[in-house]
């Protein structure tokens, strides 16, 4: 029962965020500066999601080679930068995570 309340509540707040501006803003024209600001939204938001997700392990900041997400994240950033190819970035990123974890597990990295 509680679960149903949670899911319906989540569904309602989510559509209440996604829909109104799409429904209303079409009727008015945005001022140019706002339009310019909106172009920075995707990179700013996505960066704010991925950077802490790479740096924190169990809510603790871990900067060093033992942080597998950080190492694989840096490798995929380089691939994304050089190739601009999304699929290649995903494949190399996931692959390097697996390899780095394996290296850590063999204690080859000290």
């Amino acid at each position, binding site marked *: 029962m*509680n*679960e*149903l*309340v*949670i*899911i*319906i*509540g*989540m*569904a309602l*707040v*989510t559509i209440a*965020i*996604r*829909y*109104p*501006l*799409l*429904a209303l*803003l*079409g009727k008015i*024209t*945005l001022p140019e500066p*706002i*339009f*310019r*600001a909106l*172009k*920075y*939204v*995707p*990179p*700013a*938001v*996505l*960066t*704010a*999601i*991925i*950077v*802490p*997700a790479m*740096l924190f392990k169990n*809510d603790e900041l871990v900067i060093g080679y033992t942080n597998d997400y950080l190492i*694989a*994240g840096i490798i*995929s*950033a380089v691939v*994304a*930068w050089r*190739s*601009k*190819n*999304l*699929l290649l*970035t*995903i494949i190399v*990123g*996931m692959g390097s*995570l697996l390899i780095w974890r394996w290296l850590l597990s063999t204690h080859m990295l000290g």
Partner: protein
Amino acid sequence: MAKARIVDPTRRGEFWAGVKDTIPLVVGAIPFGLIFGATASTNHLSAGGAVAMSVLVFAGSAQFIASTLIAHQASAIIIIVTTFVVNLRHALYSASLAPHLKKLPQRWLLPLAFWLTDESFVITISHFDTPDASPHKHWYLLGSELFMYLNWNLCTLVGVIAGQYIHDPASWGLDFAMIVTFMGMVVPFIRNRPALMAVIVSAITATVTYSLPNKLGLFIAAILGVAAGLISEAIWAEEKAPAMAEIEP
């Protein structure tokens, strides 16, 4: 640098181009959907609840956080408020898309809003910014969104079933797929100093504010990142924000 791709400007052509360009994003979402489904029972979310959440809410990171909060027995109100804060960024996406969709009736806008995600937004906004004047570009968005939605629900279902047989699925690192997908979307955007400043400020702010409750730091970081981009534009006047990343799908 991606070439300006020629899309067949019919409804069907736009729809399938949207589906095709979303393939890499679907690949990135698969592990994430699987792990959401597979970890549901560990987090005391029922199988039906996990599937219903994917069908009705359809917001990957919010669902993940909600599932974790359920495991920690957070109250319904906390979970719903957290969902609101985590999904606030979608309001910014809606605002960005609105000028391109203003001729559409509400029967189009409501479903397009319901299916809106980070992935479909990023891939579509760059398509809207290409100079050709196709009147059917919303079909591109529809194709991208439907593909993401079908894939997410299918992966949730498979994850829920597989979760009954897998021990400790959370330790597999499948959530890293979301990080690399978003990485592949952000990095090509960084082509000038304002874009670089937006990303750096957002990264630092998100790290410093990480311990704030309800992922509030995410929103603060996004706002400061955008501000940093705009201020940098004023300093380096000749460098404007690129329309969006030129990603080769």
